[in-house]
């Protein structure tokens, strides 16, 4: 059903997409952009009949020690019931603390306490939404010295305990591997392939830290997908097989046509992978 790559539908493109119905394979939305905007929600419902929709939440914080905002989960459930999405997903992260929303996806220590908490929240969220909830690997700038397992081990155990599926953000894997100094391909090799339900690709920026003499990759979603991420994507396709793939671009948006061009490239690479074609460098 999702053989062609999808694109993130952000509010500045909404009217254009409603008016012109461009040939996107599918559309991903952040429900938080629509729940507080009845007019945008009205337009989304028009699109839901014509495009497969994926709901990718940035506000359901399954990693928060202070708990999940169940009122927000209930609002998303209402949206889901109306839109009937093909995929529902969120993040291996936390973003809320004692009722405050920190507007970012923050890293977790990977240990038993966190694993117990996430497994519990994930069961509850999936029950609350009435759908499987795919968990996306984060882009990381640092980790915690108290972690007792790697991120891959943590995700594998989460899948084993909850039966959840994973959204593998290939760009995030690249960003984190560069920032934390591990092998991106080994990371992909370690993920349970049978649990992968979706792939993401997004742009990032490189920042120099002249004091430390190092650079850091920042997951900005405000630029084109880097060649390194495309190369890792082809590796991921060989490892996991073709999966629904999304082009994410949230800031400094280009034209919708530019997003479709990126999606077309992802679709071509996926088709080649499905046919067993050799690696195609961009």
């Amino acid at each position: 059903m999702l053989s062609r790559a999808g694109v993130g539908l952000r509010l500045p493109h909404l009217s254009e997409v409603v008016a012109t119905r461009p040939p996107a394979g599918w559309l991903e939305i952040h429900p938080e952009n629509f729940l507080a905007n009845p007019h945008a929600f009205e337009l989304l419902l028009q699109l839901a009949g014509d495009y497969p929709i994926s709901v990718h939440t940035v506000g359901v914080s399954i990693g928060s020690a202070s708990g999940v905002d169940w009122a927000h989960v209930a609002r998303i459930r209402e949206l889901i019931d109306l839109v009937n999405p093909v995929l529902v997903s969120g993040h291996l992260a936390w973003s809320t603390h004692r009722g405050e929303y920190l507007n970012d996806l923050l890293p977790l220590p990977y240990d038993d306490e966190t694993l117990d908490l996430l497994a519990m929240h994930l069961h509850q969220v999936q029950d609350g939404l009435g759908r499987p909830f795919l968990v996306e690997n984060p882009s990381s700038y640092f980790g915690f010295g108290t972690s007792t397992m790697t991120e891959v081990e943590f995700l594998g155990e989460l899948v084993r305990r909850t039966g959840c599926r994973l959204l593998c953000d290939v760009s995030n894997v690249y960003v984190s591997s560069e920032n934390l100094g591990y092998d991106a391909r080994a990371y992909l090799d370690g993920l349970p392939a049978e649990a992968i339900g979706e792939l993401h690709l997004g742009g990032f920026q490189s920042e120099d830290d002249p004091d430390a003499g190092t650079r850091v990759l920042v997951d900005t979603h405000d630029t084109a997908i880097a060649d390194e991420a495309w190369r890792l994507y082809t590796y991921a396709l060989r490892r996991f097989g073709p999966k629904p793939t999304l082009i994410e671009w949230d800031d400094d948006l280009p034209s919708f046509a530019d997003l479709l061009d990126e999606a077309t490239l992802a679709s071509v690479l996926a088709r080649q992978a499905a046919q067993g074609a050799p690696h195609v460098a961009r």
Partner: protein
Amino acid sequence: MSLAELQQRVRDAIVLGRDALENVSLVAGQGDGWRRLAIHHRHYETSLVKGLLRRFPATAWLLGSPLLIEAARIFIKACPPTAPCLAEYGETFPPWLSGWSELAHVPYAGDFAALDWQLGKVSIEVETPAVTFDVFAALEADAMTAVRLRLQPGLDYLKAAWPIDNLMRLYLTDTAPEHLVLEPEHIWLQVRGARGQFDFARLSESEFLFRQGVHAAIPLGEAADCALDRDDSFDPGRALTALFTDDLVTSILTAASEDTCEIHR
């Protein structure tokens, strides 16, 4: 250290920009952990300040972007978002601006920002079909005062001690003069919008009190009493009819029994 304690410390570092992570071991490859954490602090600040500037375009015009950015930077530390949707963040910014000492010389800034906020809020609403007056007229006469009305979602009421509506029109029409003297003046406004459009208009104080009461879903009789307490020449019949002719009423709620009966068009 528990996860809850760790998250409290990270929260403080991100919101307050404070190095609250002593005794927390951060792993950052070749990089410095604190510098890496600062990326999240910067994102918190940048994204929320940008969001507030986008949410208060007229206020940025009035005060100038540098001053509004300074205000926003302080505000987001004092009042982090408490809702998941960024578009919902900023409702308490106008009263906060009213109390900000740097704006003591702009006493209408808070009221103006409140109007700015309301215009943005109503403009993303959706109008629903209006009920006509003959539906209301068909009710039993002695039940009418207990009736409550539901009004269009893209509707709100605000009062101010300055003629902020005139100021807003200068912004919207890009016709600000070189010099303008603003004199205090109590005004009562109705703000209405839907699907990207908005409008605002002055009401008399009694009309405002009546409509504000109806909007808050108090019984019609009580809303009329509020208006009559202020102005004994207030005409409830005319005011009620105007709600229908302006297509503001979307449903009529009667309490003929313990169950509320909702009458649509």
